[in-house]
Protein backbone atom coordinates (compact mmCIF):
# COMPACT_ATOMS: atom_id res chain seq x y z
CA UNK A 1 0.00 0.00 0.00
CA UNK A 2 1.25 3.47 -0.74
CA UNK A 3 1.24 6.08 1.95
CA UNK A 4 -1.77 7.80 0.41
CA UNK A 5 -3.79 4.61 0.40
CA UNK A 6 -2.77 3.89 3.97
CA UNK A 7 -3.86 7.34 5.01
CA UNK A 8 -7.19 6.84 3.28
CA UNK A 9 -7.76 3.55 5.04
CA UNK A 10 -6.73 5.07 8.34
CA UNK A 11 -9.09 8.02 7.99
CA UNK A 12 -11.87 5.60 7.12
CA UNK A 13 -11.00 3.57 10.19
CA UNK A 14 -11.05 6.69 12.40
CA UNK A 15 -14.44 7.73 11.07
CA UNK A 16 -15.81 4.23 11.57
CA UNK A 17 -14.60 4.21 15.18
CA UNK A 18 -16.09 7.65 15.81
CA UNK A 19 -19.40 6.65 14.23
CA UNK A 20 -19.51 3.46 16.29
CA UNK A 21 -18.77 5.49 19.42
CA UNK A 22 -21.56 7.95 18.69
CA UNK A 23 -23.88 5.06 17.91
CA UNK A 24 -23.00 3.39 21.23
CA UNK A 25 -23.73 6.60 23.12
CA UNK A 26 -27.04 7.17 21.37
CA UNK A 27 -28.09 3.55 21.82
CA UNK A 28 -27.36 3.75 25.53
CA UNK A 29 -29.10 7.07 26.02
CA UNK A 30 -32.40 5.51 25.05
CA UNK A 31 -32.46 3.78 28.36
CA UNK A 32 -31.71 5.87 31.37
CA UNK A 33 -28.41 5.36 33.09
CA UNK A 34 -29.32 6.74 36.39
CA UNK A 35 -27.56 8.13 39.33
CA UNK A 36 -30.38 6.32 41.13
CA UNK A 37 -32.98 3.58 40.69
CA UNK A 38 -36.64 4.55 40.59
CA UNK A 39 -39.14 2.42 42.54
CA UNK A 40 -40.29 0.83 39.27
CA UNK A 41 -36.67 0.01 38.39
CA UNK A 42 -36.33 -1.77 41.70
CA UNK A 43 -39.40 -3.85 40.98
CA UNK A 44 -38.07 -4.83 37.59
CA UNK A 45 -34.73 -6.07 38.92
CA UNK A 46 -34.17 -9.79 38.51
CA UNK A 47 -32.25 -9.94 41.75
CA UNK A 48 -32.12 -7.31 44.47
CA UNK A 49 -28.74 -5.58 44.37
CA UNK A 50 -26.40 -6.21 47.25
CA UNK A 51 -24.87 -3.36 49.15
CA UNK A 52 -25.77 0.30 48.99
CA UNK A 53 -28.27 1.46 46.39
CA UNK A 54 -29.73 4.83 45.50
CA UNK A 55 -33.46 5.29 45.10
CA UNK A 56 -35.00 8.37 43.51
CA UNK A 57 -38.58 9.57 43.36
CA UNK A 58 -41.18 11.78 45.01
CA UNK A 59 -42.02 11.72 48.68
CA UNK A 60 -45.62 10.54 48.63
CA UNK A 61 -48.12 13.08 50.01
CA UNK A 62 -49.13 12.23 53.56
CA UNK A 63 -46.66 9.40 53.93
CA UNK A 64 -44.15 11.04 56.26
CA UNK A 65 -44.45 9.69 59.79
CA UNK A 66 -42.36 9.69 62.95
CA UNK A 67 -43.26 6.42 64.67
CA UNK A 68 -42.75 6.64 68.40
CA UNK A 69 -42.00 10.35 68.17
CA UNK A 70 -38.33 9.52 67.77
CA UNK A 71 -35.86 10.92 65.24
CA UNK A 72 -36.58 7.96 63.01
CA UNK A 73 -38.66 9.00 60.06
CA UNK A 74 -40.62 6.80 57.69
CA UNK A 75 -41.91 7.82 54.30
CA UNK A 76 -42.82 6.40 50.92
CA UNK A 77 -40.91 7.20 47.74
CA UNK A 78 -43.06 6.86 44.67
CA UNK A 79 -42.94 7.25 40.93
CA UNK A 80 -45.83 6.88 38.52
CA UNK A 81 -46.03 3.12 38.75
CA UNK A 82 -44.52 1.90 41.97
CA UNK A 83 -43.57 2.90 45.48
CA UNK A 84 -41.00 1.94 48.06
CA UNK A 85 -41.04 2.40 51.82
CA UNK A 86 -38.04 4.14 53.38
CA UNK A 87 -36.84 4.29 56.98
CA UNK A 88 -34.29 6.88 57.96
CA UNK A 89 -32.62 7.94 61.15
CA UNK A 90 -30.85 11.27 60.79
CA UNK A 91 -31.09 14.89 59.80
CA UNK A 92 -33.27 15.63 56.80
CA UNK A 93 -32.20 18.34 54.34
CA UNK A 94 -34.04 21.69 54.29
CA UNK A 95 -35.75 20.93 51.02
CA UNK A 96 -37.23 17.65 52.25
CA UNK A 97 -41.00 17.78 52.26
CA UNK A 98 -43.95 15.85 50.95
CA UNK A 99 -44.28 16.01 47.19
CA UNK A 100 -40.60 16.89 46.86
CA UNK A 101 -38.11 14.88 44.82
CA UNK A 102 -35.58 12.94 46.89
CA UNK A 103 -32.68 10.58 46.34
CA UNK A 104 -32.25 8.06 49.13
CA UNK A 105 -29.05 6.12 49.69
CA UNK A 106 -29.24 2.94 51.69
CA UNK A 107 -29.64 -0.79 51.87
CA UNK A 108 -32.46 -2.70 50.27
CA UNK A 109 -34.15 -4.86 52.90
CA UNK A 110 -35.54 -8.31 52.09
CA UNK A 111 -39.09 -6.96 52.41
CA UNK A 112 -38.42 -4.47 49.61
CA UNK A 113 -38.13 -1.39 51.81
CA UNK A 114 -35.00 0.74 52.01
CA UNK A 115 -33.05 1.40 55.19
CA UNK A 116 -31.62 4.80 54.32
CA UNK A 117 -28.20 5.98 55.42
CA UNK A 118 -28.59 9.30 53.64
CA UNK A 119 -31.49 11.31 52.26
CA UNK A 120 -30.79 13.88 49.56
CA UNK A 121 -33.38 16.37 48.40
CA UNK A 122 -33.47 16.99 44.67
CA UNK A 123 -34.05 20.55 43.72
CA UNK A 124 -35.72 21.44 40.44
CA UNK A 125 -34.63 24.23 38.15
CA UNK A 126 -37.40 26.59 39.32
CA UNK A 127 -36.47 29.72 41.20
CA UNK A 128 -39.24 32.00 42.45
CA UNK A 129 -39.70 34.53 45.25
CA UNK A 130 -41.61 33.18 48.22
CA UNK A 131 -44.19 35.96 48.01
CA UNK A 132 -44.94 35.16 44.40
CA UNK A 133 -45.36 31.46 45.12
CA UNK A 134 -47.72 32.27 48.00
CA UNK A 135 -49.72 34.63 45.82
CA UNK A 136 -50.01 32.07 43.07
CA UNK A 137 -51.15 29.46 45.55
CA UNK A 138 -53.76 31.85 46.90
CA UNK A 139 -55.06 32.54 43.41
CA UNK A 140 -55.30 28.85 42.76
CA UNK A 141 -53.11 28.93 39.65
CA UNK A 142 -50.27 27.13 41.43
CA UNK A 143 -49.41 23.78 40.00
CA UNK A 144 -47.39 21.15 41.80
CA UNK A 145 -44.71 20.47 39.24
CA UNK A 146 -42.02 19.43 41.57
CA UNK A 147 -41.53 16.09 39.94
CA UNK A 148 -37.87 15.32 39.47
CA UNK A 149 -36.60 16.62 36.20
CA UNK A 150 -36.37 13.77 33.76
Amino acid at each position, binding site marked *: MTRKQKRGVFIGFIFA*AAALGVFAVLA*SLNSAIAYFYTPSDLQKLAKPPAGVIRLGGLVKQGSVAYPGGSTTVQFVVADKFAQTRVTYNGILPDLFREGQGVVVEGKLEPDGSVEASQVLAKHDEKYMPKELADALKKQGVWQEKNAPHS
Partner: protein
Amino acid sequence: MKTFLAIILRDVTLGFRAGGGATQAAMFFALVSLVFALAIGPEPARLSALAAPILWAGALLSALVSLDRIFQSDYEDGTLDVLVETADLLELRVLAKAAAHWLSSLLPLIVAVPLFALLLNLPVEGYWPLLASLLVGTPALSLIGALAAALTLALRRASILVSILAAPLYAPALIFGVGAAEAGAAGAPSFVPTLLLVAASSLFALVFAPLAGAAAIRFNMS
Protein backbone atom coordinates in the same frame (compact mmCIF):
# COMPACT_ATOMS: atom_id res chain seq x y z
CA MET B 1 0.23 -4.24 8.72
CA LYS B 2 3.30 -6.44 8.98
CA THR B 3 5.31 -3.70 10.64
CA PHE B 4 2.32 -2.92 12.85
CA LEU B 5 2.35 -6.51 14.10
CA ALA B 6 6.14 -6.52 14.33
CA ILE B 7 6.07 -3.54 16.68
CA ILE B 8 3.40 -5.12 18.85
CA LEU B 9 5.27 -8.41 18.92
CA ARG B 10 8.55 -6.72 19.85
CA ASP B 11 6.98 -4.63 22.61
CA VAL B 12 5.13 -7.58 24.10
CA THR B 13 8.32 -9.67 23.96
CA LEU B 14 10.28 -6.89 25.65
CA GLY B 15 7.53 -6.51 28.22
CA PHE B 16 7.77 -10.12 29.28
CA ARG B 17 11.58 -10.34 29.28
CA ALA B 18 13.57 -9.58 32.39
CA GLY B 19 13.03 -6.01 33.54
CA GLY B 20 10.24 -5.56 31.02
CA GLY B 21 7.69 -4.57 33.59
CA ALA B 22 4.69 -6.53 32.30
CA THR B 23 4.90 -8.79 35.34
CA GLN B 24 5.35 -5.71 37.50
CA ALA B 25 1.97 -4.36 36.37
CA ALA B 26 0.30 -7.66 37.30
CA MET B 27 2.07 -7.71 40.66
CA PHE B 28 1.04 -4.13 41.31
CA PHE B 29 -2.53 -5.12 40.53
CA ALA B 30 -2.30 -7.96 43.05
CA LEU B 31 -0.88 -5.55 45.60
CA VAL B 32 -3.66 -3.00 45.13
CA SER B 33 -6.35 -5.66 45.49
CA LEU B 34 -4.68 -7.02 48.60
CA VAL B 35 -4.27 -3.59 50.19
CA PHE B 36 -7.93 -2.76 49.61
CA ALA B 37 -9.03 -6.10 50.99
CA LEU B 38 -6.92 -5.60 54.11
CA ALA B 39 -8.18 -2.06 54.60
CA ILE B 40 -11.82 -2.98 54.20
CA GLY B 41 -11.58 -5.93 56.52
CA PRO B 42 -12.68 -9.51 56.25
CA GLU B 43 -16.45 -9.02 56.34
CA PRO B 44 -17.57 -10.97 53.23
CA ALA B 45 -20.64 -8.86 52.46
CA ARG B 46 -18.69 -5.60 52.38
CA LEU B 47 -15.91 -7.12 50.33
CA SER B 48 -18.25 -8.64 47.79
CA ALA B 49 -20.06 -5.34 47.31
CA LEU B 50 -16.74 -3.59 46.68
CA ALA B 51 -15.05 -6.30 44.63
CA ALA B 52 -15.88 -4.86 41.21
CA PRO B 53 -14.87 -1.26 42.04
CA ILE B 54 -11.65 -2.47 43.67
CA LEU B 55 -10.65 -4.57 40.69
CA TRP B 56 -11.47 -1.77 38.27
CA ALA B 57 -9.49 0.71 40.33
CA GLY B 58 -6.65 -1.79 40.50
CA ALA B 59 -6.63 -2.14 36.72
CA LEU B 60 -6.61 1.65 36.34
CA LEU B 61 -3.75 2.12 38.78
CA SER B 62 -1.74 -0.69 37.17
CA ALA B 63 -2.25 1.01 33.82
CA LEU B 64 -1.08 4.33 35.25
CA VAL B 65 2.13 2.96 36.75
CA SER B 66 3.06 1.19 33.54
CA LEU B 67 2.45 4.13 31.19
CA ASP B 68 5.87 5.74 31.17
CA ARG B 69 7.22 2.50 29.70
CA ILE B 70 5.27 2.99 26.46
CA PHE B 71 7.55 5.56 24.84
CA GLN B 72 10.21 6.54 27.36
CA SER B 73 12.75 3.79 26.71
CA ASP B 74 12.27 4.01 22.95
CA TYR B 75 12.87 7.73 23.18
CA GLU B 76 15.97 7.38 25.28
CA ASP B 77 17.66 4.65 23.25
CA GLY B 78 16.89 6.23 19.89
CA THR B 79 14.40 3.59 18.74
CA LEU B 80 11.72 6.24 18.47
CA ASP B 81 13.83 7.99 15.82
CA VAL B 82 13.77 4.79 13.80
CA LEU B 83 10.06 4.30 14.39
CA VAL B 84 9.33 7.83 13.19
CA GLU B 85 11.79 7.60 10.30
CA THR B 86 10.20 4.45 8.92
CA ALA B 87 6.59 5.38 9.62
CA ASP B 88 4.20 6.02 6.78
CA LEU B 89 1.64 6.98 9.39
CA LEU B 90 2.90 7.82 12.83
CA GLU B 91 -0.66 7.46 14.11
CA LEU B 92 -0.50 3.73 13.41
CA ARG B 93 2.73 3.47 15.39
CA VAL B 94 1.01 5.06 18.38
CA LEU B 95 -1.84 2.63 17.95
CA ALA B 96 0.58 -0.29 17.83
CA LYS B 97 2.32 0.90 21.00
CA ALA B 98 -1.02 1.25 22.79
CA ALA B 99 -2.07 -2.22 21.64
CA ALA B 100 1.22 -3.64 22.90
CA HIS B 101 0.73 -1.95 26.25
CA TRP B 102 -2.73 -3.44 26.54
CA LEU B 103 -1.52 -6.92 25.61
CA SER B 104 1.49 -6.91 27.91
CA SER B 105 0.24 -4.93 30.90
CA LEU B 106 -3.54 -5.16 31.04
CA LEU B 107 -4.56 -8.42 29.40
CA PRO B 108 -2.56 -10.60 31.87
CA LEU B 109 -4.24 -8.73 34.66
CA ILE B 110 -7.71 -9.30 33.24
CA VAL B 111 -6.85 -12.99 32.98
CA ALA B 112 -5.98 -12.90 36.68
CA VAL B 113 -9.18 -11.07 37.62
CA PRO B 114 -11.29 -14.20 38.32
CA LEU B 115 -8.73 -15.27 40.91
CA PHE B 116 -8.81 -11.92 42.70
CA ALA B 117 -12.57 -11.75 42.36
CA LEU B 118 -12.67 -15.04 44.21
CA LEU B 119 -10.47 -13.63 46.99
CA LEU B 120 -12.69 -10.56 47.22
CA ASN B 121 -15.79 -12.68 47.40
CA LEU B 122 -17.44 -11.39 44.21
CA PRO B 123 -20.79 -13.14 43.71
CA VAL B 124 -20.84 -15.62 40.84
CA GLU B 125 -23.25 -13.50 38.78
CA GLY B 126 -20.71 -10.68 38.88
CA TYR B 127 -17.87 -12.49 37.05
CA TRP B 128 -18.97 -12.19 33.45
CA PRO B 129 -20.20 -8.59 33.69
CA LEU B 130 -16.92 -7.56 35.37
CA LEU B 131 -14.79 -9.35 32.79
CA ALA B 132 -16.88 -7.93 29.96
CA SER B 133 -16.60 -4.38 31.27
CA LEU B 134 -12.83 -4.76 31.76
CA LEU B 135 -12.31 -6.22 28.28
CA VAL B 136 -14.34 -3.45 26.68
CA GLY B 137 -13.06 -0.61 28.86
CA THR B 138 -9.36 -1.22 29.44
CA PRO B 139 -8.37 -0.48 25.82
CA ALA B 140 -9.34 3.12 26.64
CA LEU B 141 -6.78 3.05 29.47
CA SER B 142 -3.98 1.99 27.12
CA LEU B 143 -4.96 4.40 24.37
CA ILE B 144 -5.32 7.45 26.60
CA GLY B 145 -2.20 6.32 28.43
CA ALA B 146 -0.26 6.21 25.17
CA LEU B 147 -1.32 9.80 24.52
CA ALA B 148 -0.23 10.91 28.00
CA ALA B 149 3.05 9.03 27.58
CA ALA B 150 3.61 10.66 24.19
CA LEU B 151 3.03 14.10 25.71
CA THR B 152 5.64 13.53 28.41
CA LEU B 153 8.18 11.32 26.69
CA ALA B 154 10.94 13.92 26.65
CA LEU B 155 10.63 14.65 30.35
CA ARG B 156 12.66 12.96 33.01
CA ARG B 157 10.69 11.69 35.99
CA ALA B 158 7.44 12.17 34.17
CA SER B 159 5.50 9.40 35.88
CA ILE B 160 3.46 11.74 38.11
CA LEU B 161 2.71 14.11 35.25
CA VAL B 162 1.62 11.16 33.13
CA SER B 163 -0.89 10.23 35.82
CA ILE B 164 -2.12 13.80 36.19
CA LEU B 165 -2.75 13.99 32.45
CA ALA B 166 -4.27 10.54 32.00
CA ALA B 167 -6.40 10.18 35.13
CA PRO B 168 -9.11 12.77 34.30
CA LEU B 169 -9.58 11.18 30.90
CA TYR B 170 -9.83 7.76 32.53
CA ALA B 171 -12.90 8.82 34.49
CA PRO B 172 -15.60 7.81 31.94
CA ALA B 173 -14.15 4.33 31.40
CA LEU B 174 -13.87 3.80 35.16
CA ILE B 175 -17.30 5.17 36.07
CA PHE B 176 -19.18 3.33 33.33
CA GLY B 177 -16.99 0.25 33.70
CA VAL B 178 -17.83 -0.14 37.38
CA GLY B 179 -21.44 0.81 36.64
CA ALA B 180 -21.75 -1.89 34.01
CA ALA B 181 -20.11 -4.51 36.22
CA GLU B 182 -22.47 -3.72 39.08
CA ALA B 183 -25.58 -3.46 36.91
CA GLY B 184 -24.70 -6.79 35.33
CA ALA B 185 -24.19 -8.43 38.70
CA ALA B 186 -27.58 -7.12 39.86
CA GLY B 187 -29.25 -8.26 36.66
CA ALA B 188 -30.34 -4.67 36.09
CA PRO B 189 -31.63 -3.67 32.64
CA SER B 190 -29.05 -0.87 32.53
CA PHE B 191 -26.21 -3.40 32.03
CA VAL B 192 -26.14 -3.35 28.24
CA PRO B 193 -26.56 0.43 27.83
CA THR B 194 -23.84 1.07 30.40
CA LEU B 195 -21.57 -1.40 28.66
CA LEU B 196 -22.23 0.52 25.44
CA LEU B 197 -20.97 3.67 27.16
CA VAL B 198 -17.84 1.78 28.22
CA ALA B 199 -17.38 0.76 24.60
CA ALA B 200 -17.93 4.36 23.53
CA SER B 201 -15.15 5.49 25.89
CA SER B 202 -12.76 3.06 24.22
CA LEU B 203 -13.92 3.97 20.73
CA PHE B 204 -13.50 7.69 21.29
CA ALA B 205 -10.06 7.05 22.77
CA LEU B 206 -9.32 5.03 19.63
CA VAL B 207 -10.20 8.08 17.57
CA PHE B 208 -8.29 10.82 19.35
CA ALA B 209 -5.38 9.04 21.05
CA PRO B 210 -3.48 8.06 17.86
CA LEU B 211 -4.01 11.47 16.26
CA ALA B 212 -3.08 13.51 19.31
CA GLY B 213 -0.33 11.09 20.33
CA ALA B 214 1.34 11.29 16.92
CA ALA B 215 1.21 15.09 17.04
CA ALA B 216 2.74 15.04 20.51
CA ILE B 217 5.57 12.77 19.36
CA ARG B 218 6.34 15.00 16.40
CA PHE B 219 6.65 18.01 18.70
CA ASN B 220 8.69 16.09 21.24
CA MET B 221 11.16 14.86 18.64
CA SER B 222 12.01 18.35 17.49
